[in-house]
Every structure is written in structure tokens, then in C-alpha cells.
């Protein structure tokens, strides 16, 4: 199976310039190779740095132990799940896995309606931003993937509704994008904050893409 490619742009943070990139509607072997060969070494370097600096728990990226090989293998052949990724300069910059059938909305105004749930979303460690890391290489990977989830929701007839459990370090980002912060989810093992997008806020995100 070969992925459909959508041309997109990322921002090279150092130069401030736009750079060509691709949004793919599948995660294939090359992405898993990139994850092993490129993401993990940088991740380990940053984990070293966090440990050396005795960084507080809040600074440790919560997704650092994820295994994308198993996440992708789990959904092979299933209609309800899809994976997408962003590639730039031939290296995978971010990956996302979604569930289009198994979850329902929780916000009162749309309770019980279908949505696209983001199972997992992670960007490559060299794109992380924070005091313990090198300056990020590219910005825009997360917003493109989030948009892809919303566009999938629209295509399915769910009017742009999406839901996700945010990493603690990411809550500001989702709030900026206009998702509703429903607070820590008591059903989540680690009480992660649950976010949901309403159709009204979808339009704001798609139309402006600017800080609220």
C-alpha cells in the first residue's frame, strides 16, 4: 500500500523560512526505520541531558517510552484505525494514529456523537521545544497532524469533532488550537487531561490558524 501525499509547509525555526514537506495518510516501514534510526538516538541524548540536569518530572516528555512499531502493527488491517505522518527532507517528523469508530464525544453539547479520537500523536525529538533541548528544527508538524485529524472527521461526517488525551506538556498547545479542556480524565490511568473539539471551534482553527 502506498500513501497519498499532500504537500504542506513547515517552518524552519532557525532561518524563519518556510520549507516544503509532505503529509502522508499512512505510516509505512520507512517511518518505523526513521523512528529507530533517527528519533531514538536524539531521544536518548535528551534523556541523558534531563538526567544530568536533574530536571523536574514535569520536564520529562511523557511519550518518550512509546514503541511505534507495536502501535502500527496493532492496527494492521483494521478499518477503524489509521495512521498518518509528516515527512520533511526525507525524514519522518511526526506520526499520529487515530480511531474513527471506537470513541464517542463526552462534552455535554455533543455527548454520544461520533468523533475522530487521536490514539497517539508524537513529533520527532529534534522538534521538541524546551529549556533542556536544542532549539527545535521545524515547527508546524503538530498543527498539520491535528488538522489532518479534523479533516478526517469532516470527511467522515463527524463535523470536525476530535478528541484526545493530552500529554501534560501539550495542554497549552491544544488550548491555543481551540480545543476544550475537559480536565483530568478520571478514567485515564494517569489522569491525563482530555480535550475535545466542537464543530464551531473547528471552523476557527481551520479558518484562522492564529493565536486566539
Amino acid at each position: 500500500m502506498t500513501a497519498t501525499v499532500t504537500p504542506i509547509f513547515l517552518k524552519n525555526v532557525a532561518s524563519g523560512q518556510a520549507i516544503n514537506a509532505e503529509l502522508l495518510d499512512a505510516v509505512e516501514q520507512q517511518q518505523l526505520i526513521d523512528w529507530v534510526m533517527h528519533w531514538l538516538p536524539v531521544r536518548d541524548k535528551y534523556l541523558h541531558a534531563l538526567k544530568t540536569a536533574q530536571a523536574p518530572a514535569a520536564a520529562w516528555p511523557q511519550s518518550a517510552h512509546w514503541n511505534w512499531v507495536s502501535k502500527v502493527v496493532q492496527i494492521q488491517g483494521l478499518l477503524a484505525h489509521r495512521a498518518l505522518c509528516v515527512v520533511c527532507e526525507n525524514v519522518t517528523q511526526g506520526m499520529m494514529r487515530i480511531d474513527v469508530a471506537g470513541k464517542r464525544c463526552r462534552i455535554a453539547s455533543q455527548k454520544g456523537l461520533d468523533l475522530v479520537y487521536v490514539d497517539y500523536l508524537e513529533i520527532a525529538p529534534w522538534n521538541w521545544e524546551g529549556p533542556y533541548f536544542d532549539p527545535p528544527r521545524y515547527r508546524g508538524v503538530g498543527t498539520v497532524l491535528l488538522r489532518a485529524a479534523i479533516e478526517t472527521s469532516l470527511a467522515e461526517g463527524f463535523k470536525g469533532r476530535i478528541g484526545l488525551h493530552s500529554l501534560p506538556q501539550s495542554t497549552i498547545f491544544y488550548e491555543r488550537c481551540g480545543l476544550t479542556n475537559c480536565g483530568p480524565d478520571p478514567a485515564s490511568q494517569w489522569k491525563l487531561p482530555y480535550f475535545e473539539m466542537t464543530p464551531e471551534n473547528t471552523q476557527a482553527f481551520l479558518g484562522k490558524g492564529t493565536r486566539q
Partner: protein
Amino acid sequence: MKKTMTLNLTDAEMQVLEELSAKKDLSKTALLRQALRLYQMVEVRLEKGDKLFFEDDKTKEKAEVMMLS
């Protein structure tokens, strides 16, 4: 690559389909797609040996085992 299928439903089935579509704010096609996806997910789990339960929300008792395979 989209494939087309014609589906014959009884009056009762069509009524249920229309009611569910209205309730879920989905087109009939979208609803049937969701049903297919869920059916496959259930099949895969059952094949693995998992069981599908309904849980009584108040008592938290696992009330019923669904045997779909």
C-alpha cells in the same frame, strides 16, 4: 478506489437506520461504515479470545457476554 453496493433493507431495518442516523447526526452511509468498522474490531478481539461484556453502569456488574462469533 471506491466500490459501490446496493443494499436491500426491510421496512423495519430502514426505519432503524434512519432513526440511528438522525440520533447520531450521521448520514446513513456514514453510519453503516461505522457499523462495519466496529463489527471488524469486535471480530478481531473475539478471535483473540477476548469476551465482549455489557457493564451495568450503576452496579458495575458485567451483565452479559456477547457471543458474536
